[in-house]
């Protein structure tokens, strides 16, 4: 499926207008939080930013199938679109970006993008790329052992398929028909390395070799992602096993605030992809289908912007953890 127009088929998917507005809201909130983070970075307030921009449709579309606090999510560092959808807040995100004591992910211990939320079953994440895949299969196996219909959604960029962990997990999931959904957000770059130097063949086609389905989907089409992910979640809940989804998308920003992407990609390429911006595309769909009008859209955006401003301001004023706190919490007590 090539990247194209969002298909007018939400009714066919069983999504009502509230669903659509929810999807839209969460895509936009992720975008606006991200944009604000860059401002904090440019102001010298945030040491590090790593962005979801461009990938919001893939994230929100897939994660919309999760039952928060029941299913498990193993996100990767760009998946703020998912964690915000599940119930993390802009405030929490800014607290994390600024490394404050109240950072819900790590209390300021970890870099931004290292999500964690026990209540929401967002499993604590780290930086080594790919480690989440075997972990997610274990979580899925626990569901299966107990006869529960929980699903583990595990995500990564296309480069996360280059490491052995991805493969070991794919094989294990295939052997035991585990209820796990692998979502690869293929955004064309791994820092500076373009996909052809990273990925041989085609990611989605690899699932076949493990005996389960793999789909390539237009990752900038939130409904298309939702649809294929829904199929995957249902399959997992029926006990039929894993699914691999490769969402073709694009990283609009530099890899992170530490990266200067002019070293390795042309401005034109980015501009081209900006035209395919998943939020703009979905907006168009909503306008065309009468779900939103311009005023309604502006109203949502204003609401989000206010929320983001408040959250950012809150975080900026929030205290750091005590320096000495780094010494504690190394071992859990029985």
């Amino acid at each position: 499926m090539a990247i194209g127009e969002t298909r007018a088929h939400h009714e066919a998917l069983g999504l009502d207008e509230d669903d659509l507005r929810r999807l839209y809201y969460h895509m936009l909130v992720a975008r606006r939080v991200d944009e604000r983070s860059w401002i904090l970075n440019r102001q010298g307030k945030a040491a590090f930013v790593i962005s979801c921009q461009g990938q919001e449709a893939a994230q929100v579309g897939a994660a919309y199938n999760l039952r928060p606090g029941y299913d498990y999510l193993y996100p990767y560092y760009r998946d703020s679109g998912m964690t915000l959808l599940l119930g993390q807040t802009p405030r929490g995100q800014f607290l994390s970006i600024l490394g404050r004591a109240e950072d819900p992910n790590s209390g300021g211990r970890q870099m931004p993008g290292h999500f964690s939320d026990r209540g929401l079953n967002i499993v604590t994440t780290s930086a080594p790329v790919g480690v989440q895949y075997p972990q997610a299969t274990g979580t899925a196996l626990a569901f299966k052992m107990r006869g529960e219909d929980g699903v583990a959604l595990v995500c990564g960029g296309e480069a996360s398929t280059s490491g052995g962990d991805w493969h070991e997990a794919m094989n294990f999931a295939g052997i035991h028909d585990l209820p796990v959904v692998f979502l690869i957000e293929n955004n064309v770059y791994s820092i500076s390395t373009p996909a052809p130097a990273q990925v041989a063949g085609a990611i989605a086609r690899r699932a076949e070799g493990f005996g389960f389905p793999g789909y390539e989907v237009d990752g900038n089409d939130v409904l298309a992602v939702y649809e294929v992910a829904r199929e995957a979640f249902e399959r997992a809940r029926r006990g039929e096993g894993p699914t691999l989804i490769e969402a073709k998308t694009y990283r609009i920003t530099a890899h992170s605030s530490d990266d200067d992407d002019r070293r390795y990609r042309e401005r034109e390429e980015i501009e081209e992809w900006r035209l395919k911006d998943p939020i703009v595309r979905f907006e168009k769909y909503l306008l065309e289908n009468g779900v939103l009008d311009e005023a309604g859209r502006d109203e949502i955006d204003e609401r989000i912007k206010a929320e983001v401003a408040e959250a950012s301001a809150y975080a900026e004023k929030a205290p750091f953890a005590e320096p000495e706190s780094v010494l504690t919490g190394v071992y859990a007590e029985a």
Partner: protein
Amino acid sequence: MATKNLLQAIHEGLAEEMRSDESVMVLGEDVGRAGGVFRVTQGLQEEFGEARVLDTPLAESLIVGSAIGLSANGMRPVAEIQFGDFITPAFDQIVNEAAKFYYRSNGAWNCPITIRAPYGAVHGGGLYHSQSIEAWFSNTPGLKVVAPTFPADAKAMIKSAIRDPNPVLFLEHKRTYRLIKEDVPDDNPEVPIGEARVHREGADITVVAYGLMLYTALEVADKLLEEQGLETEVVEPRTLYPLDKETILESARKTGKFLVVSEANLTGSVSAEIAAVVAREAFEWLDAPVMRLGSPDVPAAAFARPMMDHFVPSAEKIEAAMLELAAY
């Protein structure tokens, strides 16, 4: 009450934990029908089924990684690594993931997994079924590394490991699996992680050792008492990380003469840490240099028997070191 060797004691500890807690499970290569290459898990699959005693693919990163994910979803997995030498592909999942789960999530997620791994030189094992792997893991806060030697301790400590809310690397010296039997009572006392054991008291010198070297050290200590009246205090760390510094230091301060023996390649081994702690905190009590004895700094034990026997510290070498120390 029954006498058991190390292997049987660990087996029994596992079985009892699995009986009393449904979330406890075992996973690893060939742990099921085959019962593991050393037979530690023999019979468990029959009793607990294929799901709770799971034969995994040959993929150590997956074994530990999936154990982490199982623990995040309510299970208490015990992962078996077939030989300690093959734990290397799981290094990332152990030191970067399991060990940091609790700290990095600011206490929200913990990682109660146990990783069992046989280690140490064995005849016919060659370079890759012989290594002493403990130093790789003993610079990693958040992880616990235990290496019990005697059967009753091992049974108690596998239980402590499983119940511990943190990741525990449980090391089993292959040559001690069947070396001795001892009484392992049904109401075996608990042995908490982090407590060393004083095997014999003595006023003249201290020897710290674990694994096969502990047995050898105990034998030599008996011999030197009998032959020369030398009173050796023998201390077994049992937990290698974090160390029970107090017990070790107490002995060092008492005797003033300190030797640590380990089978690992000497340089960079856990015995370096033990020696460093003593050199720092028992300095005023020391009557002799802090001594260490280990295997030579070569990759690992060789296959050919005469070559292997030359590699592992022998009773003669241990005796010589003890006498050198005593002579100060």
